[in-house]
């Protein structure tokens, strides 16, 4: 019989005198037979000593038979168990604690306060453009929405609580269960997560694993590991910092604005998805062979942080101006408008239909060629910028060599 781990399954674990449940695995049978036995906490250490091994209690869930690598679920909401299974797959250790449903941090503290971890308060917010944010802060951090809104570049009243319907729709959690773990859902991929930097110095952080009837505790580095595994770069922020945001002081958190707005149940119009701000690439751009259409593009992207209130408009404009089809459309529109007006000067206004028809014919015949020519231009310009980028990176090195040789 091998003791595989401790699985603190219920509240009584927290009471040192209470029983503990841990799982055992039979070595004889190929399939692991997991049987639970309960012991009093006080008797654990003697038991361990009796095994003559220096076993320390490991607060991790019992290992299960090898999990089949699951295909990404299609648009299904994650349940608590699925989340915990995913954490196990990632070899993240966590303490799990069941308790009655809690709606506030104070209530939660009654049950899990003595775990010695940092309780979190989680806010689910939206801005005027229907982009969503989760702010996860230490329980005693002051979170001032007005200041945060300014720091994000959303103006003074930009941040509001997200509508209630968004919770089950986007995060797939119930009221009172907002948690960063909800980002595991595909529907929440555009939600931006702001984490209190105070978490980093805590031993354990406490969050709800998609339901407010359970709290799990895990180390900050394991939490980061989880976030990275779902494709979210952890963003730690000093939430209490209140810098003055103005012309000389650009909003310092603007880089955390999500790339996409979501179709909120309130019937909001979907904002055309902007291209990812590539902020993390901004510094790499100088080094990688990131091609630039215009030479000032890398600096433009870097300046996004220091930009205006609506940084994503810059990105939209760039995407628009490099879109070949839109360009050709605009050109044809301009030409046809002018053409029509010129024609009207010459002939009478009755020919309106004929003119339109003619224009349509012209447009059709000329579109393919125009599109091809414009794409050629775009590719050529990109190529030039690309090589300029390479040369400018190599130039200082080449120079250095010449100097050294001398």
């Amino acid at each position, binding site marked *: 019989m091998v003791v595989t781990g401790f699985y603190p399954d219920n509240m009584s674990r927290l009471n040192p005198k209470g029983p503990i449940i841990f799982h055992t695995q039979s070595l004889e049978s190929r399939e692991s037979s997991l049987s639970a036995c309960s012991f009093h906490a006080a008797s654990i250490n003697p038991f361990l000593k009796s095994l003559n091994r220096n076993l320390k209690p490991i607060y991790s869930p019992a290992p299960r038979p090898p999990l089949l690598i699951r295909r990404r679920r299609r648009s299904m909401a994650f349940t608590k168990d699925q989340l915990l299974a995913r954490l196990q797959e990632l070899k993240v250790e966590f303490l799990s604690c069941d308790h009655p449903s809690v709606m506030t941090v104070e209530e939660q503290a009654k049950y899990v306060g003595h775990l010695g971890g940092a309780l979190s308060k989680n806010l689910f917010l939206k801005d005027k453009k229907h982009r969503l944010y989760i702010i996860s802060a230490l329980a005693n951090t002051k979170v001032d929405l007005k200041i945060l809104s300014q720091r994000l570049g959303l103006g003074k009243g930009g941040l509001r609580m997200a509508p209630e319907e968004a919770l089950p729709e986007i995060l797939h959690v119930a009221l009172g269960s907002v948690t960063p773990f909800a980002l595991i859902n595909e529907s929440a*991929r555009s939600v931006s997560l702001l984490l209190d930097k105070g978490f980093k110095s805590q031993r354990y952080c406490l969050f709800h694993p998609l339901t407010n009837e359970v709290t799990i505790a895990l180390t900050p580095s394991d939490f980061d590991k989880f976030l990275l595994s779902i*494709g979210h770069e952890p963003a730690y922020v000093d939430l209490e910092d209140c810098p003055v945001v103005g012309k000389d002081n650009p909003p310092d958190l603007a880089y955390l604005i999500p790339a996409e707005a979501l179709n909120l149940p309130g019937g909001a119009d979907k904002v055309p998805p902007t*291209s990812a701000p590539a902020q993390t690439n901004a510094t790499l751009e100088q080094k990688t*062979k990131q091609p630039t259409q215009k030479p000032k593009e890398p600096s433009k992207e870097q300046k996004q942080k220091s930009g205006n209130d609506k940084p994503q408009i810059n990105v939209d404009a760039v995407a628009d101006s490099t879109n070949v089809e839109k360009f050709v459309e605009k050109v044809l529109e301009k030409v046809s408008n002018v053409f029509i007006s010129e024609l009207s000067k010459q002939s009478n206004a009755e020919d309106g239909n004929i003119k339109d028809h003619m224009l349509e014919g012209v447009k059709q015949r000329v579109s*393919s060629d125009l599109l*091809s020519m414009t*794409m050629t231009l775009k*590719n050529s310009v990109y*190529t030039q910028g690309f090589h300029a980028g390479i040369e400018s990176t190599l130039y200082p090195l080449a120079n250095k060599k010449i100097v050294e040789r001398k």
Partner: protein
Amino acid sequence: MASFRSCASFRSCHLPLPLLSKSKMASTTGETLAAAEPIADGRTEEVEEEQVVNPWEVSAKGGKIDYDKLVDKFGCQRLDESLIQRFERITGRRAHVFLRRGLFFAHRDLSDILDAYERGEKFYLYTGRGPSSESLHLGHLVPFMFTKYLQDVFKVPLVIQLTDDEKCMWKGLSVEESERLARENAKDIIACGFDVERTFIFADFSYMSPPIYKNIVRIANCVTGNKIVGIFGLTLEDYGGKFFFPYIQAAPSFPSSFPHIFSGKYSKLRCLIPCAIDQDPYFRMTRDVAPRLSYHKPALIESKFFPALQGESGKMSASDPNSAIYVTDSLKDIKNKVNRYAFSGGQDTIEKQRKYGANLEVDVPVKYLNFFLDDDAELLSIKEKYGSGAMLTGEVKARLIEVLSEIVERHQRARAAVTEETVDAFMAVRPLPRMFG
């Protein structure tokens, strides 16, 4: 239909293959039906069939390929009207002429890709070319034209594989020559109008690197030699590289082969592969492997073969430039080829033509117009008039010459603007930050 890989090698094998009759414009690859039909566990069966469709050969008794039989045999699905309408609904514009006229006619899992796309889940495109020759004809360009359309309407990134290593193995070209051909072909591919912000072109010889090689080995660990023999009809007399190459063609279906492009939330991106139907065997194998590596199965959208100028019974060969319209042809060449070599279904004399009309089934100019003339109304009118005899062969051919000239001219103009630097830019291992923008 220009194939994904242009490979015309005769295999030195014992199988009773019909002579390599390239009646199809595209040289293609695929498994010999006479060879083996892979059953899931690798057993093979000797099946006597009339038509042969495999990555290295396409032919059929009587010349006409039975696509229904092929679809049944391969196990893919037909692309029906409802899917085309779905395309139009999702993309917000008219479907590409190749879709409407049934040139791209079969698929695997295309509806899954469209479902996912509607949910906001993106995908990337993957296609390729076997650079066996410097001169490309229109048939070779067709899959690229269609892929460009897909890239434009869905706004998704594209990777293009140039299998210079395959040509080295199958055609006995030297490594340097294959590499050179790959770069030359890349220029023509670029001239089709791909967006450099969203396209990554790579040649196997220069791109082989840890990420893709690791995937190749992972795939190789899932597919036995027996299976390869079953799918591709190789024997122990063939060089070992040919056994290994299918893994190389499969690897780009997995996004982790391109970590510089697909990382983080795109590391499990879906893949859609436009190709000719003779490439199906490669991707059947890939689809089998994908779940074992915890990836989505790549979806396919497959095309028919493009008819040769001489029609069904014509033999397409590299030595006969009159069997196809090449992208380097002058306007005079095009006129000449169409007038003199395009197989006509019209009657022998004008009187007979007026009386009986033309045989549209075998008429090559009408077939070409079917694929290249975008205007549905005009095409219908031509078919009616030509079929009833109101229109003469010469007129139809004249219209075809117009259409083809426009396409070729546009391509040549774009090709002239492609420089070595442009190729370098497309082939540079770089992130594509606006690939979905």
